[in-house]
């Protein structure tokens, strides 16, 4: 085996710009997906039958089909119907919708882990439902869900690479392009591993640091 890296040096800016796109998509989709997931989790645990059904259907449909197919349908499928969405927006929308289904399940577990006593304590203080949710339930539920959310963030980062199939110029797209230009397949794969692994580690480090700061109680 003979590893040669010097051919790849001119392509470093290209790889870094790909990494920037991947990080951008990951952060936006994590934030948007978390809000969406919280909303869906509330639908699923509501007393309204239709809301519960819709929440369930959404979660099952998304979790049981591959992200690749979802992005395909969003990008090409809607394109065939004359609705033109750019690769970036397709990725942002598609990955957010995908991520929402997973975070919804995480939040559902988090919400159900909050002891009943807290609900009762809230209503004893004369709070209405929204106030109880906002001031009493949300924080402990979020703390319980936090480790699972961090895991989800890592998975989201790794799976954002699927967006390369709709020509989004993220890290995997650039890696494959550099592979085409240089034919250094093994070397590029190693670089990819180090970049993906390094960023995942940084994400975990940051999220640990944040958990320490935010969840002090």
């Amino acid at each position, binding site marked *: *085996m003979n590893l040669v890296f010097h051919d790849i040096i001119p392509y470093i800016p290209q790889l870094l710009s790909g990494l920037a796109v991947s990080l951008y998509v990951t952060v936006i989709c994590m934030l948007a997906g978390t809000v969406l997931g919280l909303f869906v989790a509330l639908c699923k645990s509501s007393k309204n039958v239709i809301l519960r059904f819709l929440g369930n259907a959404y979660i*099952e*449909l998304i*979790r*049981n*089909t*591959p*992200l*690749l*197919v*979802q992005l*395909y*349908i969003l990008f*090409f*499928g809607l394109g*065939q119907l004359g609705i033109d969405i750019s690769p970036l927006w397709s990725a942002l929308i598609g990955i957010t919708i995908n991520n929402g289904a997973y975070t919804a399940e995480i939040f559902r577990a988090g919400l159900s882990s909050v002891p009943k006593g807290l609900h009762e304590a809230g209503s004893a203080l004369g709070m209405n439902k929204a106030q109880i949710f906002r001031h009493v339930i949300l924080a402990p539920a979020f703390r319980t869900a936090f480790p699972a959310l961090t895991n989800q963030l*890592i998975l989201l980062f*790794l799976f954002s*690479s699927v967006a390369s199939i709709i020509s989004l110029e993220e890290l995997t797209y650039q890696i494959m392009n550099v592979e085409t230009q240089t034919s250094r*397949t*093994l070397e590029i*794969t190693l670089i*990819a*591993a180090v970049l*993906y*692994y390094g960023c*995942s*580690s940084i994400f975990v480090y940051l999220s640990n640091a944040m958990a320490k700061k935010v969840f002090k109680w």
Partner: protein
Amino acid sequence: MIQDFSWIHIIPILKGAWLTIQLCFFSLLFGGVIGVILGLGATSKNKLANVLSGLYIRLVRGVPLLVIIFLVYFALPMLDIGINFSKGFSAVLALSVYAGAYMGEIVRGGIQSVPKGQFEAADALGMSYFQKFRHVIVPQALQYIIPPGIGFFIALIKDSSLVSIIGYIDLTKAGKVVSNLTFNPIASFLVVAAVYFVICFGLSKAAYYFERRFLQTNA
């Protein structure tokens, strides 16, 4: 040359689905064994076992599956140390190594969620290590292991599509092949999505009923 999409193109897609199911079944089997060993290692009192299991889990979970498959199939033979695995062996090995890390984490969580008192009670009764696990820990830990285990299996079915990098025509790749045969990606991938849905949704529903029966008999 370019054909219209028709029902005959469902055959290669179903063949791909069958391959996906086979690969995932064996990978979950071997990955499960690795996972149990890692889970026991991570929760044992032995420091070395602790560190080694932790290292394995951290390392494998931080690297994309694609890279693992690539290294097993292509990089090992290139080291010129006499290793050259076949396609099937490489795919199952890589997926098992990957599944092992996730199952290890799930098993660890399951064992740790059994209250400490249960371990102490078993010790107080003079049970051996094996007896303790067989009669006390495993029955309780399983209810924390089965649901996320099934969840992981469903994820594995979707993620295993990456084996196409080493030349396997699995469910997703079959969709690509048919799409290039017919130049009709939408129809091809809708069929692929439907097949994935049937497999994954069916599995999760089956697991749900199994789980309920299982938990009832243990209650």
